[in-house]
């Protein structure tokens, strides 16, 4: 506590969640693994289409900040779409299904799904 200017005493009464540090519960969805991979995520991603597109736009904004070139990003998008086709089954099919369900560029959904590998630097 002495070292960290934001540190505080250990909380003991935060549960059940409430108050200013709690922003709500998350919704539950069933993913049916018996469906073809391209159909598994359709309901969920359609329900969250606006939010997914919002994040994709933010990711592109971040890339634009670093790369400064719309043309390069467009070229990168098409290469990411190709990269998506090299991903292992069933993940490649699931990602295609998500892009198709919300009418988003495949490259954008691929980037969202490999964000971890790209940003561990």
């Amino acid at each position, binding site marked *: 506590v002495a070292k960290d200017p*934001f540190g505080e005493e250990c909380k*003991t009464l935060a549960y059940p969640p409430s108050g200013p540090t709690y922003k709500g519960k*998350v919704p539950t969805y069933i993913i049916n693994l018996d469906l073809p991979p391209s159909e598994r995520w359709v309901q969920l991603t359609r329900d969250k289409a606006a939010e997914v597109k919002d994040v994709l736009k933010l990711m592109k904004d971040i890339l634009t900040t670093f790369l400064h070139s719309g043309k390069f990003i467009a070229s990168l998008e098409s290469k990411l779409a190709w990269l998506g086709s*090299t991903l292992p089954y069933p993940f490649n099919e699931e990602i295609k299904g998500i892009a198709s369900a919300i009418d988003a560029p495949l490259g954008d959904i691929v980037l969202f799904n490999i964000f*971890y590998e790209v940003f*561990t630097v």
Partner: protein
Amino acid sequence: CTSIVAEDTTGKLYHARNLDFGLFLGWDVNASSWRTTQKLKPLMVSLDFQRNNKTVFRSANFAGYVGMVSGIRPGIFTLTMNERFSLDGGYIGVFEWLLGQRNGWWMSFLTRSVLENSTSYEDAKDRLAHSKLLAPAYFILGGNKSGEGCVITRSRVAALDIWDLDTKNGVWYVVETNYDRWKPPLVLDDRRSPARNCLNQTRQENISLPALYNILSTKPILNKLTVSTTLLQVSEGHMETYLRECPDPCSPW
């Protein structure tokens, strides 16, 4: 991120994590928060993966993200993943993949595959420790028997360290943030010491999911990057996930 696996005095295992994401990806001055962190919160969902109308595993995940970062195989194991930063990072693995060297796993696809296919704690541990990866990572795994809990520190090609629970020798919890356990954390980002301090104050006989939520609600373990808190209890197959906010004053990471 902060992940904890703890065992109570009866041998019951608990697992919890704060999911932190969005560092350096744009600060929103008006909202006093990271832009990516805020945008990811509405995407957070709880998923129940079923086959033949029966649950295979559950996960707390982002909509549109087919890999896994937190999940539970009821009655068998719990799993979370924390980001591990390294110069030998994921961009090298991606580059190799682009050049046609495709024998490694994308991190979140491996965790998904383990949750979907592994039917024992030992099998999950073995796959997480020995599968080749495109990026380094920390895997935090909990089982359903006394002593089944560990942190696996991974480089892209090998397990650098496996830190197991050892209640007979007083190791009743393992806690992982984003630093190798044999090195001190960055002075400006020490969430490990507060987490350990709170766990020690709580004590083994009092550990429970509410107690872990309390610990994960303590700043700076809770910080401006925290998207959600997930609580997992393997023997009951229980998972609960809550969106989080860290009002000022609050650590930016």
